[in-house]
């Protein structure tokens, strides 16, 4: 007989209060969830999507960001361009400071510079360019081709490649020799295809010997359609007061440093009048790209997570109403309100954690899939796979609060009679 002897007198405070172990609570919740497996699965789906979206977003943004660093345009990252600050607007504008003619040499002395040279537009007063006269009554023989003056270092700085001939050099520049290098397009128009026979062209009345033809220019591709003369010739034949721009090629990673030193090298004491353009730091580019992707998709992920939370809250609430009898019974066999609330909280937290776990796995699979398809290296913060399911559990916990309170406030009388 397990009966308690009746009639004995108890002090009220001696009554042991009802309690339930964490383990039992957990097992009760698990068996309640397993009792309705398809409903539990559907309920967890919202969190699966939300956490999955968040994880894959963060992962893909990171992977893509990493990709940007490795594939970051090395060309742009090693380029620095300086010019004098402009005063005035449009064609009437002029530089506030005259860049020195030896800008290229000055810059090339800086540590980290591969090549540097000046580039200036030459005002030929509308003179047309002509090549060796060809008797072609239908074809035009005079062309309006812009002329630019450069220092010999510029060819290296803009990574120009010759198809034939050679670049002009310091000697040509110093002597004011009337030599030109033609861009590929300019050469085609002027019908110059070879330089071994020392062809000549004329710009207006000035004759120049063609020493080389450019095949390609990686930076400043506009040079391909220009007539390129040395600074020396431009100064003696035309009115070129000072170089317009200085182009610099730096070592990888040195562009920010060089950009900071160029103004001092070009205009000591008047550094503020030199405008320097350098490619942004690749890490900054990555961060910005990551930031852009993240901002958008984190919002989307959060919205799906919110929808997931509402889903859990909804289904748990319905569950509470359906299980009124069970709640009443548990209260009748000694469950305190907090035990009822805990059980529903544990159930919704488990659902959230389960959804978070599946969502994390799905998200990681997606990252790997996208990376495989794009031939990228998948990159993921190591904490993400651990934090994400916890986030899911947290969502479940929060979603369960209202239904749990509702369950705790269920009146056992009504529940047992109903």
């Amino acid at each position: 007989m397990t009966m308690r002897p009746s009639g004995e007198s108890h002090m009220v405070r001696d009554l042991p209060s009802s309690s339930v172990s964490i383990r039992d609570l957990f097992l009760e919740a698990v068996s309640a969830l397993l009792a309705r497996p398809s409903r539990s699965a559907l309920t967890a789906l919202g969190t699966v999507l939300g956490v999955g979206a968040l994880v894959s977003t963060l992962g893909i943004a990171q992977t893509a960001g990493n990709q940007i660093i490795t594939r970051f345009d090395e060309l742009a990252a090693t380029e620095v361009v300086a010019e004098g600050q402009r005063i005035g607007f449009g064609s009437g504008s002029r530089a506030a400071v005259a860049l020195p003619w030896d800008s290229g040499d000055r810059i090339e002395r800086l540590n980290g510079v591969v090549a540097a040279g000046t580039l200036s537009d030459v005002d030929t007063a509308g003179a047309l360019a002509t090549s060796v006269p060809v008797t072609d009554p239908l074809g035009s023989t005079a062309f309006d081709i812009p002329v630019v003056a450069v220092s010999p270092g510029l060819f290296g700085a803009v990574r120009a490649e010759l198809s034939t001939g050679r670049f002009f050099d310091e000697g040509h520049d110093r002597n004011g020799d009337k030599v030109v290098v033609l861009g590929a397009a300019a050469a085609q128009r002027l019908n110059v295809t070879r330089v071994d026979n020392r062809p000549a062209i004329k710009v207006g009345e000035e004759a120049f010997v063609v020493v080389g033809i450019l095949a390609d220019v990686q930076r400043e591709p506009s040079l391909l359609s220009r007539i390129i003369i040395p600074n020396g010739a431009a100064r003696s034949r035309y009115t070129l007061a000072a170089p317009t721009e200085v182009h610099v090629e730096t070592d990888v990673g040195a562009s920010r440093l060089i950009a900071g030193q160029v103004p001092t090298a070009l205009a000591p004491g008047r550094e503020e009048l030199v405008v320097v353009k350098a490619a942004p730091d690749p890490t900054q580019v990555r961060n910005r790209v990551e930031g852009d992707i993240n901002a958008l998709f984190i919002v989307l992920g959060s919205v799906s997570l919110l929808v997931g939370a509402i889903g859990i809250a909804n289904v748990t609430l319905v569950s509470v109403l359906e299980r009124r009898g069970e709640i009443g019974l548990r209260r009748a066999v000694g469950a305190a309100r907090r035990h009822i609330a805990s059980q529903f909280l544990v159930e919704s937290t488990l659902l959230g954690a389960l959804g978070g776990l599946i969502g994390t796995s799905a998200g990681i699979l997606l990252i790997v899939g996208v990376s495989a398809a794009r031939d990228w290296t998948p990159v993921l913060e190591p904490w993400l796979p651990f934090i994400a399911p916890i986030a899911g559990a947290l969502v479940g916990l929060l979603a369960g609060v209202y239904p749990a309170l509702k369950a705790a406030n269920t009146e056992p009388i009504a529940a047992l009679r109903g």
Partner: protein
Amino acid sequence: MSSPATAAAPVVELHDLGRTFEGAQPVEALRRADLSVMAGDYVSIVGPSGSGKSTLLHLLGLLDRPTKGSYLLDGIDTADLSDAQRTALRGQRIGFVFQSFHLLSHRTVVENVMLAMLYGDTPKRQRHNLAISALERVGLGHRLDFVPTLLSGGERQRVAIARAIVAGPSLLLADEPTGNLDQTTSESIMEVFEELQSEGLTVMVITHDSVVAGRARRTVEMLDGVLSEVGQ
């Protein structure tokens, strides 16, 4: 089963117990009830619907608080107790049997019985053994791992009875226990109650079935919230 000095103390003692439901027109569902139920008593409570039977059941089961009077369970004045203490007392001293069984359909018979000890301090292993012996007492030792949906109505109610007695309560409170059962099955359930009572359990059955009520040693009638002992 109890020491001679305390043998005479009642399990249930009601003094001037009343319950009024407030509202535009206050309803006095139970008025001035006096009742003493001794250990091992078998009491049936009868009366038409709306007479206050359920109100009395809820008060006895500590599911509701009286608006006046006192209720002593095992000599403990329940008026002094906090909600948490009433819950604990209910879990430990009162076993409930309901008309609609209230079994968890997805849990096995033995798990359903073990549920009654979930919120107590019985160790898990012991709970299992106690549940088995309670099921054997009601003649369901061969159905331990069935789920309730596979059982007949009578068997389900036996499971519910096993659940009600497994924690060793002082009082078994049955609310229309045969309401959903046919006559033969009702008969067998009544036999279970009688057996338990003969083993010393205090049983109170609320019913509107005069046959069921007639099986009890004492019958108490409720009429318009007034409680009166019948016969003797």
